[in-house]
């Protein structure tokens, strides 16, 4: 339980920002560290509880096995979205160079 009650460190926040693809200024890093800590403080009242016997809830009304039939439905006209793409070339979406392989 100690993990959750230790204060959030600036380092942690910086790491999270990278994971979330957000650039934070120093001032923002400090502010977020404080603000997020406060929210997580509140979360500690949950952590005081022993909820080991409870199952997490999936759908509140227990829906399962929802399917669609394997039929083909019309796709979008490429123009409808390519015309609004930030960068489109030859029917494809353009992006600046990718530095690493997919994880």
């Amino acid at each position, binding site marked *: 339980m100690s993990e959750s009650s230790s204060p959030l460190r600036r380092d942690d926040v910086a790491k999270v920002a990278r994971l979330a693809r957000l650039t934070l200024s120093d001032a923002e890093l400090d502010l977020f560290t404080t603000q997020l800590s406060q929210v997580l403080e509140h979360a500690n009242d949950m952590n005081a509880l022993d909820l080991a016997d409870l199952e997490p809830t999936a759908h509140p009304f227990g829906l399962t096995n929802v399917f669609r039939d*394997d039929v083909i439905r019309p*796709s979008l006209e490429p123009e409808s979205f390519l015309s609004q793409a930030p960068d489109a070339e030859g029917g494809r979406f353009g992006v600046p160079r990718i530095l690493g*392989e997919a994880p």
Partner: protein
Amino acid sequence: MTQLPNGWEMVVGLEVHTELLTKSKLFCGCENHFGNEPNSNVCPVCLGLPGSLPVLNEHAVELAMRIGMALHCTIAPSTFHRKNYFYPDQSKDYQISQYDLPINANGYLDLPDGSRVGIERAHMEEDTGKTTHVGGSGRLAGADRSLVDYNRCGVPLVEIVSAPDIRSSAQARDYAAELRGILIATGASDGRMEEGSMRIDANVSVRKAGEPFGTRCEIKNLNSLRSLQRAIDYEALRQIELLEEGGTVRQETRHWDEVMGETSTLRVKEDAEDYRYFRDPDLVDLAPSQAWQDAVRAALPAMPAERRAAVVATLTTPTSAQLDAVEVVIDLGLERFVHAVVAAGGDAALAISRVANELAANPEQATSLDVASFVTTLSMELSGALSATQAKDVLATLLANGGDPEAIAKAKGYEQMSTDSLGAIVDELIAANPDEWGRYKGGDDKLAGFFTGLVMKATKGQANGKAVVAELQQRR
């Protein structure tokens, strides 16, 4: 198989991704089709547009179950999780996959050599889009920019993860080949590695026998069974060299270069990527009913191993050449034809040989071949009425045009000479060559060839060699 030096042993696990043969994608109705115009098979769902939601393709679940059953897995209630990471070919910047509760788990695959490889899981997930790279000779490294096509994004995949039970590159290859045969047999996949509908990554490590597992490297870009085998051998030796020099193996992903014949570093796995898996709240739990599972199991076709065993059972003491021929028959899917031929009285060994060799060039044609005609051709060859060469020729004509084998043989001039007419010619030649006949009668067997040659000349090659010898011996 490359022998590893100094008591080293390789430990290999394979991850195989296969695209499923559904009409539509996993979570939307876009067509699941290779090779269309870029971004012509996309919709708000697979394009990840704001507000879109996934709905699970029922047939994909059925195909996943078939795969699980063919691999002797337990089919269990499962959930879909989100695997969160940013990458341009991932339209939502998360992939819908399965995590701690996969649909299929704890199975195995028996290989033709009798060894067994454990299957840890075979779970469902969606495929990504495809990127092409501009500049830098088309490869990722050195490209200026990339272009993304999402036609493949959302195509259903099953990922099959083996246990690290494989101990040689040959075994790895056998595993991959057998798995491919199974995937095709279930109807779930077309197993086309060259088209990317089946992709293999290999995890390779080395150790001295009896020691704990070493650090493993993941090898990607294996586009054929041959690459798979070569890459594993290369990597095992690379790691051994490194360790024997006192170095350590770094856990990393490596890329196989088919041309250079080596693996090279793609990415060092220092910080394992944090995927922040959590259950996808847009989907509900999957629990295929027992009735559904039973129906799928009952309809499961025979797997290659079963089919192979059934054909082998028609042979008395199969030689290794015959077993190879059986393999070809199974690969071509022609065992039903072989069984029909054997049931109609055809000789099993000869049938298998002819199917594996002569019929292999055009298996579709083969399935429309008349069983009775094929059986007749086989017996004509066995009785000596046709030589092997002649039989193959008759067969080729039968394949192309159909017809009656005896009529075809006659039309080609292959018809068996009647014993009377053959006997008459032999008598003539004996009379014309008394000295030679005397020597043959006296025990000089070599002269059988002399007389056979004369008979062949006299009959313009139409006489059957065996029949000639029979006639000579009769008159001895």
